[in-house]
């Protein structure tokens, strides 16, 4: 009986300690998960903001205004346009 107890006591201590470390590790991992999730939310928020910014800057009306006013560009007259059929452009005989 005593011998069995002598055997079980260190085993008990060992499992108790491993329980402590594993729960500690679980918490650490959970903190990591939470942090990653928070980062995910942050990055997504940034993405939304950047996407909006891109949308505002690439807005057709804005591009047209810049092209016309700042760069002095204009739509060419229909008579000045030359259309090239797709086949010729790709180097294939029509």
């Amino acid at each position: 009986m005593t011998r069995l107890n002598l055997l079980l006591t260190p085993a008990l201590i060992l499992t108790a300690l491993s329980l402590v470390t594993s729960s500690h590790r679980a918490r650490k991992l959970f903190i990591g998960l939470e942090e990653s999730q928070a980062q995910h939310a942050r990055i997504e928020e940034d993405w939304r903001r950047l996407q909006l910014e891109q949308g505002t800057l690439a807005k057709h009306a804005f591009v047209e205004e810049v092209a016309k006013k700042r760069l002095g560009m204009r739509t060419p007259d229909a008579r000045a346009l030359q259309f090239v059929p797709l086949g010729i452009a790709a180097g294939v005989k029509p």
Partner: protein
Amino acid sequence: MNAATIPVNAASVAMKANQPLLQLRLPLWRSRFMMVILFLAFATLIGRAVYLQAWANDFLQEEGEARTQRIVEVSGVRGKITDRHGEVFASSTEVKSVYASLEDIRIGITPKENTESARKRADRNAQALKQLAPLLGISEAELYRRIGGGQRSAEKGERRRDFVRWARQLPPELADKIAALKIDGIHLQREYKRTYPAGEVAAHVIGFTGIDENGQEGIELAMQESLAGQAGSRRVIKDRRGNIVEDVASIQASRQGQELALSIDSKIQYLAYSQLKQAVEAHKAKAGGIVVLDARTGEVLALANLPTYNPNARAQLTGAQLRNRVLTDEFEPGSTMKPFTAALALELGQVRPSTVIQTAPGRMTIGNATISDAHPHGAMSVAEIIQKSSNVGTVKMAMNIERADMWELYRKVGLGQQPPLQFPGASPGRLRDWKKWRPIEQATMSYGYGLSVSLLQIARAYSIFARDGDLMPVTFTKRDGPVLGQPVISSETARELRTMLAAAATAGGTAPKAQTMGYSVAGKTGTAHKQEGGGYAEKKYRSSFVGFAPAREPRLIIAVMIDEPSNGKYYGGDVAAPVFSAVSGGALRVLGVAPDLPMKPIVLPPEDREIRESLGVSLAKSE
């Protein structure tokens, strides 16, 4: 204990001999008594422990939880709205609102707490408040007035307003600066702000949300349920450093709003909007609308209205700006209805495209009303009647058709019914019961007076010509492929009508200006007098053009409406057709449709040789 009974060694005996106290013989009960006392003490402790652990544990449990458990918010963001290629039309971004709990803001010190630390704190707060004022965009004096006002009213026992909002929807950078000041009593709360990068270009399709992010107009309202996000909260365990170490329970489930891809193509949308704007400005019109449908899938590729508004800055909005005319305005379509009369006559076998009908002398009398053409044309084939838009010719065809048949066709193409569309405020138009039609009404309806439609309805109705006779369902959300429609007329009739409508958009028709470089087009002009009060207004018109392109294998259906053009020109062929031309050409190029005509500039007939469509104004007067 009897010393003599225990075997002892010599040393202990010697010690005993030296210590007189140890030689005292104590009564046995005293040690027993002590033992019982100790035992009882332990028993009490154990009992108390067991009691606290097992029975009365509520209080301790609560206190423990209060020290470790926290409730954290989980955000639920409203879904994005994008165009068919993923370009963002509406998106929510995080902003912060500043709340002040006035009672907790300490300014100055009370005599009671005149200590070193209190003075320091007051100094620090005064410094922080000085920095806060410019961040909120108010003066320091104003800031103190706000704090003071709130605190005084609390003293007087007035209704306490100690939790007030000072600023709403601040950008995050500004909010971070305010948070860094760490003033007691100033709280930041996370909110979301909806932004519309396309601005006024797509305002009527997208709509907007209120400040609490509930959809109020357009798609935002129609799709509220799937777009809406739901913020939730959960209970967690936090450690000493504030890290979340364990999830305990979800209190309220959060929900992220679903992303929504519309059928709108932002390039075509801009094209349609800018061309419509040009036309409305050039013709000094009151309003205008345009809708572009994909003839294969029934998707709405573009929808624009004027006047419009900027959904990002809605300080002053008028009803006129808000109105989605394409969907909600009912108007008498005028000549754009003529192809339906011809289609029905063909379908019933009463005429063939080459059947000649005498339209001379350009007027006819029904009852006490007279129907007339702009110029008398003489004998014309059915194809020419559509091409040149003759009222008399159309009415002559209509008079051979049963009222019920006409009504049935109109119903089948969706007139007089709410379009099956998930969009708020879509108008059903007006189509009266055929049993109540008088002969003159049947006659006028054949060329588009006496019934009313919305622009979207007429555009959709034209799908029976653009497709092989079936009416397609329309949608604002992206579809993956061609859609099956409800058969209305035979594909034979549809093909014949396509040819007639293509002829209308040539130098010999009413809409030569609808032609576009590189693509064949087909369509019908409409110029209608506006109804005002009981009758028709003399000089107020509504010019429209409904057509499709390419004419032989239609890909797009486009309907344009210009309300009250007042710069001299008012015929649909002059006002609305050029918009169709520009939008169809541009949109087909955007879609990558191969040109079916040589890329040569369009040659328009000289102004004086133009064919005017008939308005039916003499009828309006005679009624």
